[in-house]
């Protein structure tokens, strides 16, 4: 079962295009949507939420069509973003009174509990909240109406490391129910990746891969070695390579082949997601 199904989504902007993207987000798991800034992560998320209309293609959330069944979908999902969806001049408590009746499964007890846990004063005006506090508020709302799917746009931006760690526990709590799903987007790889089951990597408006984190780390390798090992054929094996006077460092996406190719002559390491993001975005050769 898929929590989210995107089919052939296309959206053109003057400087940038989301190009025929299809993506399945698995139910019961956490998916991290990663990629550098300005490659389409937010556009993709806005299309999932019905905030941006695609030029073509279709969006299905929890088996329902977006935007046709938007009201039902919004009942069952939680949206976490630092972009304010609420009225800036309202206090938290006033905002709650406005939105709570909309949700069939709203719990005041849960909401008040989260406000206390997140140290958010109910009397505070939305407009006076910091970026991080807005994220916390959005999370409190999402967790108070038994959302089956959390869609989080850059949730870690503006959050201090202490709360980021606490958030891992909150999300893992939600995932104790195997019908629940989470997708989050991020351009910085953080502790959130630790608990992600699937990684979808988007670059220049296209999905580069969407697979289990384990699979990604088994397939890719970071190769480090002496410049003498490189010739034009070997260079072509790399997705991206950085050459300096003291040696090279490059990313390959077929670890096994690289092991055979380099043997003991080079060091092969498991790359971080950041390494994969860096070398894929820069591509080609970097001379530093």
């Amino acid at each position, binding site marked *: 079962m898929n929590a989210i199904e995107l089919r052939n989504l296309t959206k053109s902007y003057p400087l940038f295009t989301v190009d025929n993207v299809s993506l399945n987000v698995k139910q019961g798991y956490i998916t991290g949507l990663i990629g550098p800034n300005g490659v389409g992560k937010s556009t993709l998320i806005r299309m999932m939420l019905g905030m941006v209309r695609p030029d073509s293609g279709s969006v299905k959330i929890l088996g329902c069509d977006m935007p046709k069944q938007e009201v039902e979908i919004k009942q069952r999902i939680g949206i976490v973003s630092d972009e304010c969806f609420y009225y800036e001049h309202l206090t938290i408590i006033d905002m709650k009174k406005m939105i709570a009746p909309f949700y069939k499964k709203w719990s005041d007890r849960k909401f008040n509990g989260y406000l206390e846990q997140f140290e958010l004063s109910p009397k505070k005006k939305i407009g006076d909240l910091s970026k991080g506090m807005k994220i916390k508020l959005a999370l409190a709302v999402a967790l108070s109406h038994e959302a089956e799917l959390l869609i989080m746009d850059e949730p870690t931006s503006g959050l201090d490391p202490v709360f980021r760690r606490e958030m891992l526990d909150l999300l*893992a*709590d939600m995932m104790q129910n195997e019908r629940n799903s989470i997708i989050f987007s991020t351009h910085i790889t953080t502790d959130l990746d630790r608990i992600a089951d699937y990684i979808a990597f988007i670059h220049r408006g296209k999905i580069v891969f969407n697979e289990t984190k*384990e699979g990604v780390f088994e397939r890719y390798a970071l190769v480090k070695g002496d410049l003498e090992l490189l010739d034009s054929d070997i260079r072509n094996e790399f997705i991206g390579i950085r050459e300096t006077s003291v040696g090279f460092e490059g990313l390959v996406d077929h670890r096994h082949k690289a092991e055979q190719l380099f043997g003991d002559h080079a060091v092969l390491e498991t790359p971080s997601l950041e390494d994969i993001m860096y070398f894929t975005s820069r591509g080609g050769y970097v001379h530093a």
Partner: protein
Amino acid sequence: MENIKIILSNASSDPIYIQIMNQIRQSILSGELRAGDTLPSIRQLAKDLQVSVITTKRAFEELEKEQLIDTVVGKGSYVSGANKNFIREQRMKRLEEKMLEIIRESKELNMSRQDVIDHLTLLYEEEQTT
């Protein structure tokens, strides 16, 4: 439910699922976990270790393949009822694999069979005196 001890290291070169698998296996082979003991659910363990569900699931699947644990759908996983002989057998199997590795390495180093036996005898005696 038994308490299981798992410590994950970021400094280790082993993938996380291997670390989880090795430590549960060790607890079973050492007798710390006994046949019939229940293991935490995959999702609970993933939460406690702050790792992904799939990582934890993979560790459990590998242990199932080794017949060290059994999983009953809807009920969770527990240490397999296989007897002590089986566990000893498994340990012997792992020891044999390590021995084979030693033999292969020795051959690469052009050591004779007698060289290997002599070396092993020497180390065995040293280990006993300490």
